[in-house]
């Protein structure tokens, strides 16, 4: 595997990736792969696959997960720090600029109209994201019960989502234990 000539080269590659990807972390992956595997030859496809698998079972921002992991593979701790900063800074700059103008912008009547449609589109995008995630799991009775309970509690109560997630995880572990005991008896 090759190494970047300088940490700045690493930063610049991830900066470009952060600046051109729309639609979040997973959309970033093909571009990231092309840059760091094909063009630069810093890591191989095996590493790309590894971070995809790891991200499935770790929390956090996917783009940051990928940048941290690949940066580390390339240049250790400083590599991970520089790659992460690279992927974050374009957002920080773009959104900061927008933030300073958003209020004036939103004072326009036509823009206010536009935001009703934007919210409607966002609602559908969120719904589609849920459908996409649901294709990744196997729906047995346990999963259905959790799904329905989670919808009901999130919709009709003020219980913090953090608690619901924690309870979901604990129930998963408890269910696994029960399955194990039943498996041992059978």
């Amino acid at each position, binding site marked *: 595997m090759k190494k970047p000539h300088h940490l700045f080269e690493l930063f610049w590659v991830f900066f470009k990736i952060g600046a051109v990807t*729309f639609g*979040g972390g997973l959309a970033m992956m093909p571009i990231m792969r092309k840059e760091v595997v094909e063009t630069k030859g810093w890591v191989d496809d095996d590493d790309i696959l590894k971070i995809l698998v790891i991200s499935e079972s*770790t929390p956090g*921002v996917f783009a940051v997960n990928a940048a941290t992991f690949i940066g580390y593979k390339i240049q250790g701790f400083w590599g991970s720090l520089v790659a992460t900063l690279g992927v974050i800074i374009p957002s920080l700059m*773009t959104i900061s600029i927008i*933030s300073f103008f958003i209020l004036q912008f939103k004072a326009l009547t036509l823009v206010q109209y536009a935001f009703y449609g934007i919210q*409607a589109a966002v609602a559908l995008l969120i719904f589609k994201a849920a459908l996409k995630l649901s294709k990744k799991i196997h729906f047995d009775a346990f999963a259905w019960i959790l799904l329905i*309970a989670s919808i009901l509690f999130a919709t009709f109560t003020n219980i913090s*989502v953090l608690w619901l997630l924690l309870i979901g995880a604990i129930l998963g572990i408890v269910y696994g234990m029960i399955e194990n005991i039943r498996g041992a008896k059978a």
Partner: protein
Amino acid sequence: MILELLQLAWIFFKIGLFTFGGGYAMIPLMESELVSRGLIDVNMLYDFIGIAESTPGPIAINMATFIGNEAMVQYGFLARIFGSIVMTTAVALPSFIVILLIATLGSKFLESKFVQEAFKGLKPTVIGLILSVSFGLIVRLVFPMISFENLLFDFSIFQFRNLVILIILVLLTVFYKKLSPITLILVGAMLSMIVYSVWS
């Protein structure tokens, strides 16, 4: 000011730490942690999400930058920039630490039974949370006075224009499955400009 900033940073750190399943999975957490504590108005949150989706970069980072800036709005230019940097760092830090630990120590423990089982419970819960958020948003667009979490079923205001926009967008996504998020948002924006201008 510093105290406010730290309190908000702690919330974003928790959001970063408890997000499983990508940027959209963060939205229920943001609604629960930011809106119900009165730190941001619910309409503002979803307007931001619309913008975060149509600008480059990870949606979570975009949102943290936005809200960090917004929270410091009364303290001036430098404070707003500082707020953005702090929030963005806070939301990215859990990812950075967890992945750095895995990169140095290996990912063996992820394959442990415990973690796998926890995920068996986490995944359906996350999907339920995301669905609940999208239902909530759709209902609020059409019947703004309804508040499910306070068990307030008030149908007195009916936004038929939003219903029309929603139906057209649903039909669009059903017939054009490949529509990118930005295209859908832009179409939504144009559509509602037209609908509201005609029916104002």
